[in-house]
């Protein structure tokens, strides 16, 4: 028997393997979607939190900060900032930007209203309560 290694079999394995593992991925996704509400306390996603997420997005915060470790690595992690600093500090900090300290990294002034600041803080508070595995990040510094 000579060596057999055919293109059609290689192709079948590609298609079969891709479909197979995508189905497995869908099955796992199904389970994940079922369990996310509990792990993330989705009952806490109030209108204010939703508005806060919108503020977070439209100011492109992710362009400097990380949130649960995803984003840019130029500025501190904010997934746990509520636990690290508290709501009042966050609001005061955002109002005080930019610091203007020469040579230091600067955060823009976004001119947020009190309502918007409260919404953003509520979003960050809810985010800090998401049940992440092993309570990531490793410590309060993020």
């Amino acid at each position: 028997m000579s060596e057999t290694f055919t293109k059609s079999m290689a192709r079948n394995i590609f298609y079969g393997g891709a479909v197979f593992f995508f189905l497995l991925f869908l099955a796992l996704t199904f389970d994940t979607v079922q369990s996310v509400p509990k792990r993330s306390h989705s009952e806490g996603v109030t209108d204010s939190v939703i508005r806060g997420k919108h503020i977070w997005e439209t100011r492109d915060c992710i362009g400097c900060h990380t949130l649960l470790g995803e984003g840019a690595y130029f500025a501190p992690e904010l997934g746990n900032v509520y636990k690290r600093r508290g709501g009042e500090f966050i609001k005061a900090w955002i109002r005080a930007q930019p610091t203007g300290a020469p040579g230091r990294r600067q955060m823009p002034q976004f001119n947020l209203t009190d309502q918007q600041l409260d919404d953003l803080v509520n979003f960050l508070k809810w985010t800090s309560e998401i049940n992440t595995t092993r309570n990531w990040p490793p410590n309060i510094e993020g």
Partner: protein
Amino acid sequence: MQYKSQAVAKPYFIAAIGLFVGQILFGLIMGYQYVVGDFLFPAIPFNVARMVHTNLLIVWILFGFMGAAYYLIPEEAETELFSPKLAWIMFWIFLVAGALTIVGYLAVPYATLAKMTGNDILATMGREFLEQPLPTKVGIVIVALAFLFNISMTVLKGRKTSISLVLLLGLWGLAIFFLFSFYNPSNLVMDKYFWWWTVHLWVEGVWELILGAMLAFVLIKITGVDREVIEKWLYIIIAMTLITGIIGTGHHYFWIGTPEYWQWFGSVFSALEPIPFFMMTVFAFNMVNRRRREHPNKAATLWALGTSVMAFLGAGVWGFLHTLSPVNFYTHGTQITAAHGHLSFYGAYAMVNLTMISYAMPMLRGRSANSGSAQIMEMWSFWLMTVSMVFITLFLTAAGILQIWLQRMGTTPLGFMAAQDQVMLFYWLREITGFVFLIGLVLYIWSFFCKKGTAQAAA
């Protein structure tokens, strides 16, 4: 060049290189902001520069993919492109839309841009890499569909080779998974979960099919190895890619509030993700060693081999470094991620586009290869860019390790900014290396204008 309509690839390649230059310039701005924080503030805040840097990367790589498809598909299908005119129209739409988006980022505050472009109707903006305003996102879908229609029709009326089927599959996947960028649930965990369906299933899924098809095409052309052999290895490699890469998405689901089993699924499958990249390296070198012809375009051969090696290093090795969840617990969201991102994007997707351009551009300009001196210049640019990118990666890795040590280990961790101050040296080194990269890129562009002299006649 065998078919007249392949010529539409040329503007796509030129645009790709032009945007690549823009990407690098903004990268240098950001690199400088890492060391001198208030550089260009408030004119170009870091988040804007980063948006421009990453979006230009995506757009130029898409231009490269489209150009590659317009060049490759007619030759594989052995027929003229279905509609060169449509390809030209889409070129201008995509270029203008891309340019307007970048101008929008730079000219108005992001929140204003969001308001202007209807983000309140369907909020999709402000998520990493998917920052584009709604009209741009819709435009990408339209351009992608018109493009897919064009090349699919070409394949349908011509010869259907495995390479063009794989390429088509990759490009269709690209368009389909982009649709998840329109889905933005209000629950952040769900948002992040499906955000990866675009991002991960692109770069560690369907883009690898495109990469494999492009590399296989160039290898067939420059080595003259039997198509059957190359195509069956292509299938095996991309099969491994999807077998490991689809569930490998789990390595992004470690710490974002998703169930704990992803620790295991993500770690196990993504640990196997280097295998297809390793196979690709072995495959590329094997084919070149078994070559049946001496193609005059030595530079393209160098790029093809370089892609296979650097993709393995950047995506395979640097990915594996931090993909196991006990390691990722510490490295997640640090400069380690940035290091991996740079080497893998350059090694896999930037380089495969440059490979394709290196092979196809001389053909599009009526010769089978550039003159010896132009090729030597191009090879210099290869080494300058590649070596400097390796060093950028090494410096960022060092910065990341130090950052983790200071900020995440030990009993008295430093705050984020205090830790950043401690790793400043590596950011300086990275920025200097970035300029070397820019020199390599300038040299690369210069090689196109090098005197024709002894250019090889068209094949």
